[in-house]
């Protein structure tokens, strides 16, 4: 039963997480509320690992989430279910027309979805902040990392390693 649910949920994410990898975060957060597949804490760890391993972040997140839920089978189901909707859509688009261009209604749909999707990512960040920013020191470190990110556009993995070292040194 979990296998089927896993497939349905990740198929939905593949269909509605419009705009790429990080958009999957609010969808995965929604899963932590619906099922006991993985906790918010585990989700936060997953984001870090998906960001610091090669491969598309969305795919990494799905594989990790599936693996956390049902082992290797779960990882395979979640990943295939994630890419299946866009696979079907792209094959249909490629067959229907040689030169597909964004239809005006598709454009409207996407431009309406975009601000909402950004709000969704921010919304998923709130509970993750609540479980992470638990002390004044933590808030200070968080603010420093964010400021550094705004100033120097280094890759996420740089900040993840830096914060891991900070965590070990300061025994957070």
């Amino acid at each position, binding site marked *: 039963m979990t296998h089927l649910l896993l497939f349905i949920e990740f198929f939905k994410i593949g269909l509605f997480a*419009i705009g790429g990898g990080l958009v999957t975060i609010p969808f995965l957060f929604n899963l932590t509320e619906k099922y006991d597949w993985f906790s918010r804490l585990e989700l936060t*760890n997953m984001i870090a690992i998906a960001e610091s391993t090669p*491969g*598309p972040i969305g795919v990494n997140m799905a594989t990790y989430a599936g693996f956390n839920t049902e082992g290797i089978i779960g990882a395979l189901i979640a990943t295939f279910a994630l*890419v299946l909707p866009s696979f079907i859509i792209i094959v249909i688009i490629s067959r229907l027309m040689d030169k597909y261009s964004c239809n005006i209604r598709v454009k409207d749909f996407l431009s309406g979805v975009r601000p909402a999707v950004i*709000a969704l990512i921010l919304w998923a960040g709130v509970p993750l902040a609540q479980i992470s920013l638990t002390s004044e020191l933590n808030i200070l470190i968080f603010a420093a990392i964010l400021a550094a990110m705004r100033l120097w556009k280094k890759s996420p993995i740089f900040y993840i390693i830096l*914060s*891991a070292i900070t965590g*070990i040194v300061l025994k957070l």
Partner: protein
Amino acid sequence: MFGGGAAMLPILKAEIVDKRRYATADELVDLYSISQCTPGIIAVNIATFIGHKLRGISGAVVATLGVITPAIFIIIAVASILSQFMDNRYVIYAFSGIRLAVVALIINVVIDLARNNIKHWGKTLVFVGTFIFLLFVKISPALLVIIMGTGAVALGELQRRYFK
């Protein structure tokens, strides 16, 4: 390949346009914009498109599997190794630090996305309104996407019909 999506474009160009000549640079840019216009992960979408262009359905299947297979192997390996050390004291400290970076990363992405996409007061209103709505009302992200997208299509139709 790190970063996904846009980070993939130069690598794709080097491999697909310059080395293998599977597509021209113009076609690649087209594919990239179409891939942003379809749901799903952009990197995977581009692979599926190019696979289909070259060899039809079987090409699409192979190309898609090609993009996701390394990720599956790496993540399963990392996840299995990590799960054995998750109760190690230092790993716990490290992840307490990492979680702060993850929250910063999310806020950072939201700032970038907002700067690039929310340039119009109407969109600002939609963004702020949706965020406040989400704080008070429980709704599935999928349903929200459907509602906001359909609303925008309806609004666009009305505009084209009556305000032109």
